[in-house]
């Protein structure tokens, strides 16, 4: 896998928001690489910086948000060195995003067909109306929606169907890489499962990589091959999904999350919470940002930010792993 050219490379990416109290460090020196057709999960609690990172990758940061440092490359192309015009071409055709609030991603006064055709024709000026119509049909077919809904308005569709339409629009221009920001969070478990199955099904025919954002560990572990865990703007661990079945050899935060989730069928039915609450991103704890809540904390943790250490099949940012190989980006 690693011989292939990556679709996404994040090097030391930091994103901040200006606020009255000072800069909010929403994303803090993040490193991550995605390879073609790979599904990587990004999990973290509310406010940990997942959506901010996604917007930064798409170069869609708004308001007071800015890329404070680092490099973001998609298909080898530095996203922030593109001109405005190049960016417009690049976005949606090379990289696309399914937004967290999918319902508001659709235009309430346009039919499904009009919205798909609109996306296609804005980016492919040379596409004729009849070609676009044909493509819209293909896309609906791909996400298992009856073609009669081409003429439906968003409010006439169920939540699950709307989400499928949004996914169809995201892949309309055959991007190499799609970010999905909590695409199923608002849906019932059965609908959620059928959409996840659908995503995997589509991926067999259309080849694209996915950065799948969620706060649901069990769900991400089933879908993705690797999972990145975010805490207070930092990627504290990147691991193979299978390893999330097992306790031990994880970042203490990951370990805490694993102990906090009730398992559906395991014999063991005790769970433990992580004491305390996530930190204020304006005033991050010194050293390791997790240290006020960490059961393994020791003196160094309060002073030095830990390095990223290479594990057999992942990365961990924690002083406990000192002695393992350090990873230096840049």
């Amino acid at each position, binding site marked *: 896998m690693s011989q292939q050219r990556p679709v996404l490379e994040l090097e030391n990416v930091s994103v901040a928001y200006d606020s009255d109290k000072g800069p909010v460090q929403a994303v803090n020196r993040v490193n991550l690489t995605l390879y073609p057709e790979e599904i990587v999960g990004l999990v973290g*609690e*509310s406010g940990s910086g997942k959506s901010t990172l996604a917007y930064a990758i798409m170069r869609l940061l708004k308001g007071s948000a800015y890329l404070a440092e680092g490099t973001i490359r998609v298909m080898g192309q530095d996203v922030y060195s593109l001109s405005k015009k190049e960016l417009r071409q690049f976005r949606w055709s090379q990289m696309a995003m399914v937004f967290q609030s999918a319902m508001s991603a659709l235009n309430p006064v346009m039919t499904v067909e009009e919205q798909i055709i609109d996306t296609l024709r804005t980016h492919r000026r040379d596409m004729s109306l009849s070609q676009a119509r044909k493509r819209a049909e293909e896309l609906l077919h791909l996400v298992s929606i009856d073609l009669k809904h081409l003429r439906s308005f968003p409010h006439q569709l*169920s939540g*699950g169907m709307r989400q499928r339409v949004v996914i169809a629009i995201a892949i309309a221009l055959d991007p190499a890489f799609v970010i999905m920001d909590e695409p199923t969070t608002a849906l*019932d*478990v*059965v*609908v*959620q*499962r*059928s959409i996840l*199955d659908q995503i995997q099904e589509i991926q067999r025919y259309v080849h694209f990589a996915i950065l799948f954002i969620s*706060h*649901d*560990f*069990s*769900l991400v*572990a*089933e879908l993705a091959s690797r999972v990145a865990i975010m805490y207070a703007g930092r990627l504290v661990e990147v691991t193979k999904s299978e390893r999330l079945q097992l306790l031990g050899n994880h970042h203490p935060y990951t370990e*805490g*999350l694993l*102990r*906090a*989730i*009730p*398992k*559906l*069928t395991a014999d063991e*039915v005790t*769970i*433990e*919470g*992580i*004491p305390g*609450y*996530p930190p204020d991103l304006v005033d991050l704890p010194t050293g390791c940002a997790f240290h006020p809540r960490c059961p393994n904390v020791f003196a160094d943790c309060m002073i030095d930010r830990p390095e990223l250490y290479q594990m057999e099949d992942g990365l961990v940012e924690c002083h406990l792993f000192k002695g393992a190989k350090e990873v230096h980006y840049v």
Partner: protein
Amino acid sequence: MSESPSLVAVSDLYVRFPIHSKGKKAYITPVDHVSFAIERGEVLSLVGESGSGKTTIGKALMRILEPTSGTITVAQRDVTHIRGNALIEYRRDVQMIFQDPFGSLNPVRTVEQHVMFPLRKHRNLKDAALQEALDNLLERVGLTPVAEIRIKNPHELSGGQRQRVAIARALAVNPKFLVADEPISMLDVSIRAGILRLMNDLKADYNLSYLYITHDLASARYFGDRIMVMYGGQIMETAKSSELVRKPAHPYTRLLLAATPGNPVRQALPETSNAAPDLLEGRKGCPFADRCPFVTEICRETAPQLLSVDAAHSVACHHPIV
């Protein structure tokens, strides 16, 4: 069962709401002839998809709404249609914790004001006794340091802390029974376990019974002694939690289990369509018939009765999987 009567006994509960369908007046029935009981010190988990009628059952139990028909008996008292003082008194025994910990708190009241009010009103505490009860209660639900937290407004608290305030306020009246309506679904993963554990510990300390409403089978199993599965306003299956998860007998329970993340067996979803259930009054047959892989003629004609498969396990299905 016959030795000591249940704390909560719901019999043939029916709730309907008026809607307008094609210009004509019609009704939906999100609670359609539902019967169940909750014993003292027991936690009953109520599971089902959104819109299946879970919250409506919780509100009927709280008597936030009045049932159309059927009876609700709590501590041997028929509370189905009580009003006025009787209702105020009833709310001392029964409290509810809501999904949205922000919406259920008053933004201009401090934590101590929220909790002090019921302590004063329902328990007639004042002065030093009131202060002591308040501090003890906040401490008990993990709102520490108490002195600091007491004077905060809801917007200065995290979601988990707000939910703890809601729990403290509910406990302030010394209730016998709590309805907890998706109390953790809006909280972060690392915070959820703490709230679930707190509710679990309080159960023992206060000899509380709960109706725990959730759409998450894993937490339903963790917290509930029994699980009751609802679909389209009707009860599909009830069993001891571990039994329900290990030996589901109803096709809808099997579908829920198959869809729940963390299930070691990955299989295609056992459903024939993803149509939403019909809640219109007067519908006939099994509410799950449109999606059920085992549907037969009789399913579309006659609604199955909830029948025991063994002592603590009942199923409403013409063709249960046993």
